[in-house]
């Protein structure tokens, strides 16, 4: 099999496409797409771990990405001292109540025999604990949200450099995945898919509605940056020297420079991840994961703990998605829960994995670049197509106006068609999984 030329050819095509955008539209646009492609690639790697290595269908990547984004806020924003002083105490008490409830429930269960009575008692303990926690939680929330609601009205963060949020975001997503996995793993594949789809909606609902945590849909803007600001660059002598040496305009040069900085950071993360993942795949652990994926029962008969391994890879994959979510918030410089939707953060990422090639890390990266490129460029392409189709119509013709307005939605159809075509005619993806021994 001539496996080498094809991937090279495909990646060369990607580079060519971005160069074309660079010359055709602008280098700034091209680089913005590259940055989002890199983030999507990290997300796709996370899903590929779960689906490609272990055969788990996780339709909840939106939730994990949002948790990563939340980490961006909680790590980088300065703490709001007033909120902590008015609501911190009660909030802490309510957290204690939750912990106490869990401990009482667990201990209670240990001391009672199995049966209906035990379940009823557990339910009662949880119910009482819920109301106790709410009794402290509600006033705390009210106090916190009333602190200068237009600007803060939340607890703020830890005031650390935002780059740490990439790790914290991964930890958040991994922790959430551990809880979800403990409950939902062991379900059949399709039930698990439905359950993860549900949990991601719940995570997002919490982030949107708990204003004390991250201002909910009021958004948190102005997050700090790991890279220099354009305005500082434009006044610093070394950058101006660089620009005169390159013969470029300092204003547009500074935006491109900032985007390049981000790209370098993201490429770093991506390469580290791929290196780790490739090593993992080639280790006995990777062999075991493939064995479990290909035949769960045989692997179980060989003494492998399938549920535990599934939990492990689910947590790891979710953590990678969380890292990507934090990277996205960092790039945006703001956290906007309203912008998360399952189509873009779950299903498009899925298309990337399937198109790139399930089980192949480089395939996921390739898929991310190709699919994100189509997702972004389908919009201008759709507009161009609609303009072409409707040239015969009058400027103010309602049909023409409607078609032009609706053109952006064409990319959703294109995405579906790409997925269906690849699934039908090249089910292993553009870069099929490499057979390893």
């Amino acid at each position, binding site marked *: 099999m001539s496996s080498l030329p094809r991937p090279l050819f495909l990646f060369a095509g990607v580079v060519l496409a971005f160069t074309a955008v660079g010359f055709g539209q602008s280098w700034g646009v091209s680089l913005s797409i590259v940055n989002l492609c890199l983030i999507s690639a990290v997300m796709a790697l996370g899903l590929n771990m779960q689906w490609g290595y272990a055969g788990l269908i996780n339709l909840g990547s939106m939730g994990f990405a949002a948790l990563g984004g939340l980490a961006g806020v909680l790590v980088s924003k300065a703490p709001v001292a007033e909120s902590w002083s008015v609501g911190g105490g009660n909030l802490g008490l309510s957290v204690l109540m939750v912990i106490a409830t869990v401990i009482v429930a667990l201990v209670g269960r240990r001391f009672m025999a199995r049966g209906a009575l035990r379940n009823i008692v557990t339910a009662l303990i949880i119910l009482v604990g819920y109301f106790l926690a709410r009794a402290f939680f509600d006033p705390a929330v009210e106090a916190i949200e009333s602190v200068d609601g237009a600007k803060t009205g939340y607890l703020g963060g830890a005031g650390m450099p935002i780059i740490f949020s990439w790790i914290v975001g991964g930890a958040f997503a991994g922790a959430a995945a551990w809880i979800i996995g403990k409950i939902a793993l062991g*379900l059949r594949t399709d039930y698990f898919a439905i359950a993860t789809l549900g949990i991601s*909606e719940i995570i997002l609902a919490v982030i949107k509605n708990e204003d004390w945590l991250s201002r909910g849909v009021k958004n948190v803007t102005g997050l700090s940056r790991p890279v220099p600001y354009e305005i500082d660059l434009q006044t610093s002598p070394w950058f101006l020297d660089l620009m005169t040496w390159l013969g470029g305009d300092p204003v547009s040069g500074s935006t491109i420079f900032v985007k390049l900085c981000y790209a370098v950071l993201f490429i770093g993360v991506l390469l580290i991840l791929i290196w780790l993942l490739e090593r993992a795949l080639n280790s006995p652990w990777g062999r075991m994961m493939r064995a479990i994926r290909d035949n769960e029962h045989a692997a179980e008969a060989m003494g492998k703990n399938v549920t535990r391994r599934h939990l492990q890879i689910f947590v790891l994959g979710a953590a990678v998605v969380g890292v990507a979510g934090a990277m996205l918030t960092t790039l945006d410089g703001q956290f906007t829960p309203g912008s998360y939707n399952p189509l873009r953060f779950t299903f498009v990422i899925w298309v990337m994995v399937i198109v790139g090639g399930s089980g192949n890390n480089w395939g996921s990266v390739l898929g991310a670049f190709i699919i994100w490129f189509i997702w972004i460029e389908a919009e201008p392409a759709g507009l161009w197509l609609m303009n072409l189709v409707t040239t015969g119509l009058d400027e103010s013709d309602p049909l023409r106006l409607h078609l032009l307005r609706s053109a952006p939605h064409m990319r959703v159809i294109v995405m579906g068609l790409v*997925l269906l075509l690849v699934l039908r005619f090249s089910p292993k993806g553009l870069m099929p999984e490499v057979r390893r021994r």
Partner: protein
Amino acid sequence: MTEFFNALVLLTNFVLLPGLTYGSQLALGALGVTIIYGILRFANFAHGDLMSFGTMFVILVTWWFQGMGVGIDPLPTALLALPFGIAAAILLTLFADKTVYRFYRRRKSAPVIFLIASIGLMFVYSGTVRFIIGPADQQFGDGARFLLKVQEFKDVTGLKEGLAIKLSQGLSVGVAAIVVIALFWFLQRTRTGKAMRAYSDNEDLALLSGINPERVVFFAWLIVAALATIAGTMYGLDKSFKPFTYFQLLLPIFASAILGGIGHPIGAIVGAFIVAFSEVTITYAYKKFLRYILPESWEPDSLVQLLSTDYKFAVSFVILVVVLLVRPTGVFRGKVI
């Protein structure tokens, strides 16, 4: 005593009626999911968007009728447009089956492949709907608003609390009842219906006894498209039509189907009502209700709302997970494929 009746009316108005309405809408949706599960044996993620596609067509035809001045006042024009929407949805599903699913059926692909294919179709349906009608909210109900108005009820009973029955609520429940009866008559009494049940029960045995699988699948899509369009139209008349909301309905619909026992039609209906009533009762604020039934000194000062309405998905999810853990076959012992 009046206090007690006031409390009862309050609960009927804000819990019982919305629960019944939402439950009937969910039941129609869950029946569709469960039939696909029984016959084609996969979880159809495109179901929510199929609902929105059918409903979109109903809305377009409704507008056309309204433009021509055709109507069936006091009933909403959408009822007149419903057959057109159903026809469009049927054509769409049959086309999708021919171009997408049949290939995998012939190859006897794993259910997971069907699931991923349904995600692809979900994209196509949802993009088509957004392309044609846009992602925004649409109101398309016309005709009379209420079967029973608050003031009328208050005048007759003399109670402080009013009871209002919206026409859309009555329609949802009535139409769902008729559709369900027709469906069960079809499944129990007709030759094709029996063939479908046999096929769902044991594919190999059904094939041995000469049942044509393509015919069974054809009728399954026919029924599912009709159910989805009716469910979507009823939901849209009752609330409003928004493509994304219809996608989100997937979760309660799946929860209902799984709760009742997947592949089990009666189970889907029972599951739908359990899910609907759980959502409504858990997100209802009981403050006013308690004020009526409790002595004055016990009056609560908070809203007494167990969960804010923003978290209604959590209810479906919890039900889903509890069922899957405690009784994976569902209440009515559906199949485990």
